């Protein structure tokens, strides 16, 4: 075997190996999705979606979990998206983008994005449930336990903290795309800073805010660790009515049913179906975010 053929064979082998790694990832995704679709599609029906679990969670549907997840991400977005957006605006419009302050904040936000989800759960428990909730109870209810226990509000706020970096990064990216000339034109016409932000900058980064919100919702719907002890409940026959109620959640429901159910084997179709619904939910959200970001990147300022 001469030098050239040996090199050629080595090259083929290397190409094959790296391609196998790449397409291994593709196969992995396909395998997981097909398994879950195969196991779950038969059990999904309108009854499954619209009814509460029955018979000790071995039969029935997942309606409370769907509604709980919905409320969780709704409250989370109502708090997290405005806060994240305003922070991003402040960082880009009111302080110099490269100032030491802005750099520090960006470092903090990056750090926040890297903290494990379970640590947010601890923070939620220590800060929201015990410090805030306990404080409210002491002030208003004379120490009677009302707010100082896990509930949907504290879980949502914890989740809002977790998803804050997602929102801030998305909105910052969008704000950076608004050309400086537009702002200058607006200011030159006599508009004040706030008018410029409201009428020029914000309308041009609605897409970014929306992308951030969707990504945050997708992340929030999928994370379970932060709500383990800030508000998720094992089983509730009803949907949450007040902010002080606990709630069921899709991911937590999967976790409970597959690890602590009385009949893990028998409820397999329900578990698959719940997983499938959670997966569908996150996919729809993720893809709409990807699509929006794509539209945004091609953007009007290209």
């Amino acid at each position: 075997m001469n030098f050239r053929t040996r090199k050629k064979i080595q090259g083929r082998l290397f190409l094959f190996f790296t391609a196998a790694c790449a397409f291994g990832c593709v196969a992995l995704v396909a395998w997981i999705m097909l398994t879950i679709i195969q196991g779950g599609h038969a059990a999904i029906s309108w009854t499954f979606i619209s009814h509460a679990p029955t018979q000790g969670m071995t039969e029935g549907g997942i309606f409370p979990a769907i509604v709980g997840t919905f409320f969780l991400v709704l409250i989370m977005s109502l708090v997290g998206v405005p806060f994240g957006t305003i922070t991003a605006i402040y960082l880009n419009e009111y302080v110099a983008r490269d100032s030491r302050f802005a750099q520090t904040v960006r470092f903090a936000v990056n750090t926040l994005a890297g903290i494990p989800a379970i640590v947010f759960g601890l923070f939620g428990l220590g800060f929201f449930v015990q410090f805030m909730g306990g404080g409210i109870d002491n002030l208003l209810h004379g120490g009677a336990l009302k707010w100082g226990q896990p509930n949907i509000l504290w879980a949502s706020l914890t989740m809002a903290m977790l998803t804050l970096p997602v929102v801030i990064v998305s909105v910052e990216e969008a704000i950076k795309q608004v050309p400086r000339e537009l702002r200058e034109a607006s200011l030159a016409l006599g508009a004040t800073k706030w008018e410029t932000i409201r009428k020029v900058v914000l309308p041009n980064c609605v897409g970014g805010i929306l992308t951030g919100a969707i990504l945050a919702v997708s992340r929030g719907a999928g994370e379970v660790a932060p709500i383990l002890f800030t508000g998720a409940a094992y089983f509730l026959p009803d949907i949450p009515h007040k902010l002080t109620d606990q709630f069921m959640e899709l991911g937590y429901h999967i976790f409970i049913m597959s690890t602590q159910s009385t009949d893990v084997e028998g409820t397999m179709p329900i578990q698959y179906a719940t997983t499938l619904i959670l997966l569908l939910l996150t996919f729809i959200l993720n893809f709409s975010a990807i699509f929006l970001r794509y539209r945004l990147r091609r953007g009007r300022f290209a």
Partner: protein
Amino acid sequence: MTPPSVEIPSSKIGIWGKPRRRPLEWLIERGIRATAFVCLLLIALIFVFVFREALPIVLGKVKAVEITESVGESETYGEDPAPTASQPKKDLELEAEASDEIIGVKHILGKEWQPVSLKPRFGILPLLLGSLKVTFIALLFAGPMGIFAALYTSTLAPKWGKEFMKPTIEILAGFPSVVVGFFALIVLASIVQNLFGLQYRLNAFVGGLAMAIAVIPVIYTVSEDALAAVPKSFTEASLAVGASKWETALRVILPAATPGIFAAVLLGFGRAFGETMIVLMATGNAAMLSPGFFEPVRTVSATIGAEMAEVVFGDTHYRMLFLLGSILFVISFGLNAVAEFFVRNKLMKKFKGAS
């Protein structure tokens, strides 16, 4: 983007000596600033609150400080098993603390209701070992796979291959960890058990494999960024002296991007170390100090997830769990900082002026 400072005529200065041309404007600006600061305050509070709850254990007694330090050492210097040496010391100190509590100091440090039955749970080393085992397995699989997949897409793949990989990785990154955990628990565990004929269905190996699924997107994305940042002149120079495409990829581009790839592995490590739901579902959750990879393990994060709901606010167990959380926090923080250092200082400096 500070506005150019404008001279304000004295007639328009308000009674407090501040420009009050537009009260609404002033109010909104203050509002935005306040909101942003609340946001930053909350970020800072995460640091404060997680450590605050663990602080009494660290500061409460001099001996407790020694213990946390010895834990820190054992975790940075690898799996070298020195547990037998520090374990009894720790138990002794906990007993001492417990006996203090029985005397009845109703201090925030000392609300201890089940000191004896909870005692074995406070040995931190099996948890750290468990986390390291799972992380090691995860990186063993996800590392090469993520890095070589990134190398393939950034240098060797045809255009359609690139177009194909991007959404795939986005989907993989979008899998909720509970879904991956479920998949590992139901499908992967059985396959691994049948394949190796294992005694335990759920073990560190299964947990690590499942963790690899969650870590691949992290390693892939960061490696790809690093590989894409290698200046085109490197490739051109290599091809010009007669190297083939794959030799360029393996011998020029990959070594050039080493700091970035190192950062990718570090971030993958951090992700695997802190991830909770997957290990909670797929590792069997038995805190054992054993060397095997095919035995059940309990990780740091899973311990917090599994036990926090049952502890009593303020007691030693509660504080121990917060201490575990602080450890996770410090590790992920440190890894992020080091990774950023590698990308920004080593990688970018290397390429500066080369493009």
